[in-house]
């Protein structure tokens, strides 16, 4: 059994991806120097280089997928959390407090649910000033029993 999660990357996601690459490696040339000249053995740097190069290429692109090859993920998918994922897919919220207010839930339960979803990579909590802004990483979620 596989649970397959797809996420559509919008232009803003790709801009954010490049900003994150810059914060990790400063510039593309610095990263290239690191992986080619210094022959670094850091897997993340090599993968970052491959992704960044594709994003710089005209017509290049990035697709992102998440697959759960374990039924354990269903422990995280309670009805309330699925509802939360669906809400985040269709609405932008400014903070965890904002989400709690909109769903008419208390802050702690909302935070706990987000933390459980974040542990499986289903949401991200983006630091924005003093707040953490919850963002869904799920556009669709599909269970597949095919061999």
């Amino acid at each position, binding site marked *: 059994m596989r649970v397959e999660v797809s996420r559509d990357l919008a232009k803003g996601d790709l801009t954010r991806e490049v900003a994150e690459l810059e914060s990790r490696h400063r510039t593309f040339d610095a990263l290239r120097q690191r*992986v080619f000249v210094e022959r670094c*053995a850091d*897997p*993340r740097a*090599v*993968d970052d280089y*491959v*992704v960044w*190069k*594709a994003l710089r*290429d*005209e*017509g*290049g*692109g*990035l*697709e*992102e*997928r*998440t*697959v*759960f*090859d*374990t039924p*354990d*993920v269903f422990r995280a998918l309670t009805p309330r959390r699925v509802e939360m994922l669906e809400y985040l897919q269709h609405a932008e919220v400014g903070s965890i407090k904002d989400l709690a207010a909109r769903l008419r839930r208390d802050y702690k339960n909302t935070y706990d649910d987000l933390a459980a979803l974040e*542990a*499986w*990579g289903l949401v991200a909590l983006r630091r924005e000033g003093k707040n953490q802004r919850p963002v869904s990483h799920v556009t669709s979620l599909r269970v597949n029993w095919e061999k």
Partner: protein
Amino acid sequence: MTRVVRQRIWVRRDEVLDAVEAFDGTRRTFYGYTYRTMRDGSWFPTVRWDSWEGQDHVDRYDESGQLKDRTAWRDRPLADVLKLVKTFRRNLLGMDLSEL
């Protein structure tokens, strides 16, 4: 025109196989498959199969995530690597990976 597919495959809550593959049309031009395990809230590479600079090889990492050894291996698809990871998991660190 390069298209990159980045996948995170969860094997367990604290074990993932991160795959990055680059394609030129339908031809796969690069692969990097990293089996990571979580310790103290952080992901550490444990074993990595990749084709960096056209050389198919497999790397093993120590507990602090530093490269321990590197051996050649023959290119296999992601599905085969996932099968290896699911079958042997952390025991991969003590095995002769070039023979798998």
